[in-house]
């Protein structure tokens, strides 16, 4: 292993706050140095690029999980084993608890352990390792040990016909655990920058990838090494009447609702939270203080979803400024259904209805 510490990514700042919304839900990455070449790629390729860079820029980084040596079910790890060798990119047996426990140990020896859980639905056998081992290692050892180099990647969310065990959005379970970070990107460009930040962040991170967008979302992604800041939300669309907060694949649905609402004269501000814990309360608070209304939307069931936390915090911070109760448009309180997926999901029309009733409250 040659030393390969060059090209450590620079933190890129995002400039879309003052930018008019064009189409899709992309954002612009502005870099302090000159523009690097970029290519139009989909989300799984952007993840793949980030993993290439992570392995290339740090010889102490490893990628492993079920079938990742072959490229993984979603092709995110294609070519990595060929390029970096089977010592650093390898298949594990089918044993999620073992995979994550192993990753924590690896990370505890100052390595970057990038573990893949094939679907977020299968992260639960590893739940104990994440909650009791990874999250508390630093705290309970009085900072002697940590597994900050740990990043767990897992595809999450609905895909149209995934059924009970290929569709779930389990992010809120992990948001209840101080000591880990939870990050969810909305687009290819975001995915690459946020994943690199997550891998290099000195805390364990659970990184959920919207699998619906792996192939569907395509945008210009800079080819070089860049990072996007964690715990910084982004205003994707400015508005004055109501604030909408979401993350991941749900943002494109919310964006469509914003467009529809605009036709009826309602001006929506749309925020991508990106990091769920620790989350950027200030950006959301500032927005709600301006608009006086808040709507949160996610695919996970409404009860105990992360939307509940956002609602409560904003109610505490903005009580006197709120002109309507906080609205939550989320998945229903049922298991993720097979044939009834369209009923279950927080669709554009449900969001639009909620926007209107909030504005007319």
């Amino acid at each position: 292993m040659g030393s390969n510490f060059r090209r450590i990514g620079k933190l890129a700042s995002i400039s879309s706050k003052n930018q008019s919304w064009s189409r899709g839900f992309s954002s612009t990455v502005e870099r302090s140095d000159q523009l690097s070449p970029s290519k139009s790629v989909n989300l799984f390729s952007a993840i793949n690029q980030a993993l290439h860079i992570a392995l290339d820029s740090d010889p102490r980084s490893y990628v492993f999980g079920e079938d990742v040596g072959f490229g993984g079910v979603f092709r995110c790890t294609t070519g990595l084993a060929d390029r970096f060798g089977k010592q650093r990119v390898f298949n594990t047996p089918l044993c999620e608890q073992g995979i994550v426990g192993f990753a924590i140990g690896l990370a505890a020896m100052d390595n970057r352990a990038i573990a893949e859980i094939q679907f977020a639905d299968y992260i639960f056998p590893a739940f104990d390792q994440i909650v009791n081992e990874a999250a508390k290692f630093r705290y309970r050892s009085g900072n002697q040990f940590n597994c900050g180099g740990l990043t767990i990647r897992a595809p999450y969310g609905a895909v149209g016909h995934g059924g009970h065990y290929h569709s779930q959005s389990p992010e809120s379970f992990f948001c209840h655990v101080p000591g880990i970070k939870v990050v969810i990107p909305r687009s290819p460009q975001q995915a690459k920058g946020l994943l690199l930040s997550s891998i290099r962040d000195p805390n364990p991170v659970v990184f959920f990838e919207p699998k619906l967008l792996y192939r569907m979302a395509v945008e210009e992604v800079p080819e070089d090494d860049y990072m996007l800041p964690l715990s910084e939300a982004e205003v994707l669309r400015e508005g004055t009447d109501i604030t909408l907060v979401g993350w991941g694949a749900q943002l494109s649905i919310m964006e469509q609702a914003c467009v529809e609402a605009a036709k009826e004269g309602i001006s929506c501000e749309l925020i991508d939270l990106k990091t769920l814990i620790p989350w950027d309360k200030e950006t959301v608070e500032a927005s709600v203080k301006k608009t006086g209304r808040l709507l949160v939307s996610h695919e996970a069931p409404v009860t105990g979803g992360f939307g509940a936390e956002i609602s409560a915090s904003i109610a505490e911070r903005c009580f006197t400024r709120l002109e309507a109760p906080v609205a939550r448009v989320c998945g229903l309180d049922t298991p993720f259904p097979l044939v009834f997926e369209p009923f279950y999901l927080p669709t554009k029309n449900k969001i639009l209805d909620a926007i209107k009733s909030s504005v007319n409250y």
Partner: protein
Amino acid sequence: MALSTSRRAINQFIKPLSSSVYATRRLTSDSTATITVETSLPFTAHNIDPPSRSITTSPNELMTFFSDMAEMRRMEIAADSLYKAKLIRGFCHLYDGQEAVAVGMESAITRKDCIITAYRDHCIFLGRGGTLLESFAELMGRKEGCSRGKGGSMHFYKKEGGFYGGHGIVGAQVPLGIGLAFAQKYSKEEYVTFAMYGDGAANQGQLFEALNMAALWDLPAILVCENNHYGMGTAEWRAAKSPAYYKRGDYVPGLKVDGMDVFAVKQACKFAKEHALKNGPIILEMDTYRYHGHSMSDPGSTYRTRDEISGVRQERDPIERIRKLILAHDIATEKELKDIEKEKRKIVDEAIAKAKESPMPDPSELFTNVYVKGFGVEACGADRKEVRATLP
């Protein structure tokens, strides 16, 4: 990037059919007369004396085996087409190639014995007395499905048949099976549970936890490892330090069984049931093969060679084995067997047509069975006030 092919020789999967298929007597008409057959291969045993290779059967049983396996095969082929026509959604895992395990196991036990398995569950369900209509309706998410259209391919169940399903999380069903076995033992009924899992699942920690509990409490549990040699694209040797799954129980005895030979499966299951009732758990490793890819999104040809697949089809196919036996004993003619297969095709098509007529479940079913009826939650509309319903 193609998955590289197993470095094991193809031959590993292909063992001769002919040597073991012999008859002691020739029979023609008497459907209950006894025929003695020998299993294709000897059993390999771990910590136990293996059962005899020699088994008595009858023309009746041979015909039933043929007919049952032909029906399963046809059902899976039809499910493949329905999936491609987008009439089946969700994830769908087919069983063709492994039929002898379902049929042989069923023939050795009763419906009071329990079976619990993973997501490759269609044929086990049929074996437990499920119907083609219930299967296809479930696959297509219709009301008449065995789980009322709410489960789909991975979640078939049949309570009256002692079939506890149909589980999506790899390995999770095995400890459940141990719980079933405890309940059986506690009620002092002489029944057992067959907890099935794959070679991939064999590496999950839960399996070892289950095994220890079962052995500790002498439970009538039979752990059936359906070793089809791949867990998705991963060949067994890539994932397991010891792919001798029948030995993995260490203190728990095990048998390695030719899972492509319905008689070997039957003999092993009968033996295992007797053992489990007296002495507690045992592992049966069924050496089998899936012809289809892992699920419908896997063509099944990137991590193994076409020669390997066609080699197994030619040398070890469970249906062909029985066909040869039937012909060798003059129990039926080749034409009669073809006619049975044609008939299966017909009843499968009829079941599909009927399943298609079955309506989708009522939208209110989205909310039922989350909790016991009457203990339901409330669903709210977007305004959280006007549209509010207490769920059934």
